[in-house]
């Protein structure tokens, strides 16, 4: 067992070294904080604008509110994360932005399919809600990863299939994405209850769950970045 662990550590170290070679700019704790703050603020602004300027919210008009939020959130996320793209020398900033924009509908398709498979209604009246919800989910989950990693399969696999991020930036992408998914999954539980509240409708409570999960996960990811950054500094010393 001990040997195995050692082996694994070695493998990890090799992987780290290899990623460090072609790596992006490193992310300091302060940068991480500000990125998360801005992303969180993006959500808040979206909600605030919807509430105060258009006087609607997720319950009363889910489709339009969600559209507003993803329209606010996705450019913020794309522009921010593209700055930290992989291989900045070979890949221009604009290309990274383009990847993010491309990932938005593709990721939305994946999330929408996932939601439908898990039981989201498929009738026509729910279609705009599902589309806007999945676009929002996509801009929280897939757009950052696409902007940073592009089409690097090994990165995608490590982040989303293994959930094994191993540097600050990967923590910042991986943990909020998982937080949003888990939050949305948990948010679906009150739906079958017979309380007859308007927020039990698809996709209202799922959206709330996803947002709460996303925000909490950003806090957690910040913690990981701090711990991880400290460790890295010590290693360098």
């Amino acid at each position, binding site marked *: 067992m001990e040997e*195995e662990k050692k082996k694994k550590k070695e493998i990890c170290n090799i992987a780290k070294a290899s990623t460090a070679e072609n790596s992006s700019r490193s992310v300091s704790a302060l940068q991480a904080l500000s990125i998360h703050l801005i992303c969180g603020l993006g959500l808040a602004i979206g909600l605030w604008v919807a509430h105060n300027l258009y006087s609607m919210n997720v319950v009363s008009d889910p489709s339009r509110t969600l559209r507003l939020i993803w329209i606010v959130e996705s450019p913020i996320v794309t522009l921010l994360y593209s700055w930290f793209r992989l291989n900045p020398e070979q890949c221009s900033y604009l290309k990274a932005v383009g990847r993010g924009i491309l990932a938005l509908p593709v990721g939305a398709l994946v999330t929408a399919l996932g939601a439908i498979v*898990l039981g989201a209604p498929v009738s026509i009246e729910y279609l705009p809600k599902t589309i806007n919800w999945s676009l929002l989910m996509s801009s929280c989950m897939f757009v950052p990863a696409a902007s940073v990693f592009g089409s690097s399969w090994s990165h995608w696999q490590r982040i989303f*299939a293994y959930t094994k991020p191993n540097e600050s930036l990967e923590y910042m992408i991986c943990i909020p994405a998982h937080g949003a998914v888990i939050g949305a*999954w948990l948010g*679906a539980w009150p*739906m*079958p*209850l*017979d309380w007859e509240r308007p927020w039990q409708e698809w996709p209202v409570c799922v959206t709330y769950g996803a947002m709460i999960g996303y925000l909490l996960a950003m806090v957690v990811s910040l913690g990981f970045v701090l711990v991880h950054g400290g460790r890295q500094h010590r290693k360098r010393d």
Partner: protein
Amino acid sequence: MTSTTTSFTKFTFFTVAALVFQITGLSLFVFGFFPVKPALSGVSGWESFFAPGCHSVENQSQTQMEMGLSPYELKSLYQDLSLIPPLFDRLILMVIDGLPAEFVLGKDGQPPRKDLMDAMPYTHSLLSSGMAIGYHAKAAPPTVTMPRLKAMVSGAIGGFLDVAFNFNTQALLDDNLLGQFLRIGWKMVMLGDETWLKLFPGLFVRHDGVSSFFVKDTVQVDKNVSRHLENELSRDDWNLLVLHYLGLDHVGHIGGRSSSLMGPKLLEMDEVVKMIHLSTIQTHDNDRGRTLLVVVSDHGMTESGNHGGSSYEETDSLALFIGLKNQVSISHYASATHNSILQVDIAPTLALLYGVPIPKNNVGVLISGTFDCLTDHQQLRALELNSWQLYRLVEAQLPGLSCGDFSCSGFIDDLGSGSGECSGSMEKILRCLFMNAANLHNSWKYKKETGFESREDYRSTVTAYHEFLKTASEWLSRRVTDKPVPLLAFGVVAMALSCLIFLGLITCMSREVYTGEKQHLSGSSNSKIRWCLDEAFILGVVLILVMSMGSSSMVEEEQYIWNFVISTLYLLLLRKAVQSHSGRSGSALFLKAQNKRSDFQLCAIFLLLISGRILRGWHQGGVNWTHLPDISKWLEQAGSNLIRSIQLTSGLLMMGLGLFALFLFVTNTKLVRVVALFFLISGFLVLWHIMEYQDNEFVSSDYHATLLAQIIYATLGVGTIGFVVALPWLMPIQISSTYSKHKINSSTLVSVDIQYKFPLLEFRDSSYLIGLAYMLCWCLLQLLLQQPINSMPIFLLLMQIFTSMLYYSSSGPQNKEWLEVALLYYVGMAGHFALGNSNTLATIDVAGAFIGLSSHSTLLSGILMFIITYTSPMLVLLSMVMYISVKDTSYLAIPQSVDLEQFLKMMLGFPCLVPLGLNSILLTAYTVVLLLMRNHLFVWSVFSPKYLYVCTTTVCIYIGVFVVAATEIYIYMVIAFRSKIQVSISNGIL
């Protein structure tokens, strides 16, 4: 070596012991928890006209008094004692099975729909002219015919297990109205549902029973009742005429509330009402006496025409009193239609109207609107009699109540103390309310004698009586009779013990297996950590289920949980499949093979996810959201041609899939051809039956259809048993090392050593073929029995299971065996709901349970109903036979120490133990939940039906596991025997 063999025996011993514990515990609990008998035995006699607690009166044996009296003397004795002159001499009780009161009286203050109004013109004219009063009579669940009839005639809410006896009706021995009528010498006639004859054998002087057996017959069943009507109405030798029309219920079962047959059926009922009413008006002046016509329904129906549950649509039954010839101002239409009562209130009302004692276990309260033509004195007397009866019933359940002493003469001195507030324990409250009413009544009587009575006093007395009656009635009907605590405790403990044994066995087994595995695959046990997430989730699912059982709406909507959980599990497996996929197509051969495998797994999981979603959308199950659109409703709207073509398509697809699965198996083509031929023949027989007979709603019972169905049963049954018995003997055994490779099990890990000791491959092949034969025969049977709309879900389920098998066969040691078995079990439960089942009794498909039966048989139709309801769990359990053959478990065994008994244990262990273990957890947990919820409002409507389902699932699991274990052991023994012989022969030759 010996330790492993004893361990196999030990395993079997422990499993059987756990099963015995579980069965004992379950039966103890069921008999302890569900009340079977009401409180009081015996029959109300003349003592019911005296106040309770008068020992001087009650001590005298009533039989002594009454045995000597002739019915007429008894009748006049009752009349003298009751002080209420009977208002009517004859009663016509017209029961319209399944008629919702909404059809006649409307809902929420609104009159019924226009077309329904038009369908019953005469009844509505009676209602609007004040000749009739209608009530929404709320029926208690379970809303099926026999318990409801019992409630109407005895006023008692029966035990829950009455449902179980609904198909085995037995004589009603408790005190009831009909018995009371018989005692005063009434002659009774019954026309209609033969349930009455079973409830009251030998009671009717004339009868013509019709059977509710042919559910698809909506015309003849009512004609058989109405044909005697004219004759009976012209006769004067009966006092009670019971008419029970079944047609409307059958219309509902076939086409739901909005069936096109509903209007004509209501019109027919209206004609009957008109005919009876006109004839009773005519005969009114003769000396035949006054006749009251009471039109009641036993229960309502849901939108789709089913019943059994406790929704408003099902419990909203009708009580319509025609011929009270009123009297007072019921001119207002609304006041004649929007009263609501309980169904049990009919019994005391009729008893008081006809001057017989109220049945002993009645919990109903008289319907005040029907006594309006009596004098104040008589009305109070009626209330008093009802209160005395209820007080006696309460007294029997609360012994502390009887210590009160009020004088038998009925006069109490302190007249003023009638209006105190009542509080404290239930005993005190009831006693106080009763005393209040009695005191007020006495003071009213006193004042009346002295000439000072006022309207105010009268009204407050009536209010006081009603308050007592209402409180007592509610308390009695909600009261769950005292539970025998030791019995329940012992039951729960036994079930918990068996649950622990199962869990212990599973942990023991998995520890044994996976330590072996680790030794065997010490190089690459890296996978262990990776697979933790879905294992944890599968255990978490059990926890989620147990927790969700405590919430009534989660119990009602259980299908959401299963679907959600299974899709999540598949997504987790998808994630695992992606993990082993290595991006670009590597040049290395190993990498290519791995990528190919994970591509295959990805496809399989996608197929599973999509078919699972379609299954989920097929029936909008549950209770609260049944009105939402789903595929089955959409198809039903699209018309029966489309449904039939879908049915045929899914039949053909099913056969195609079966043949494909058969020819995946290549070691012996001759045997496969025999199986395929048999399978095709029976498949086409089923399709023929569908083409010819399934669509004819109006054919009551076709002899040929029944015969064909019986032929199909025989073919499938004989074929399956024949295969199971013959296949292990016919499977050729090759001892040489050049055996042809199994196409699915292309594992290189099968050691030649085991192969030499035991022909593993032949064992696998036999299991595979037999498992396939089981599944295909089961699905064909379901194609015949299930509703046409369910044929596609059955195909999808079969496809899901095949896909899972393919996926599992490719996964090898990647997935742990218990995880896969548990996942299959979950799929079975989700499929159960996808076929339109729910946790209410209303969704049980009764119509299918009579296919192919030529005479009524409770046992056979019960078995068919079980087969229909438990299609999916049973299919999954049968697929375990196939699973054992496809799952490559040979890596589990360490070649040196392999032992044949050990091998059997490895093969059978998880597929049998995991379903039993999961089920025992759910059963035990739900038993505890039921105990905790015993005072919940929904205990009888939500939790108890669910418990019945849980119990039946347990039975289903027992049967399935037994079949799996028996089949595998049989195959093993035959093959081992044959290989031994073959080896000895070849040795002899050598």
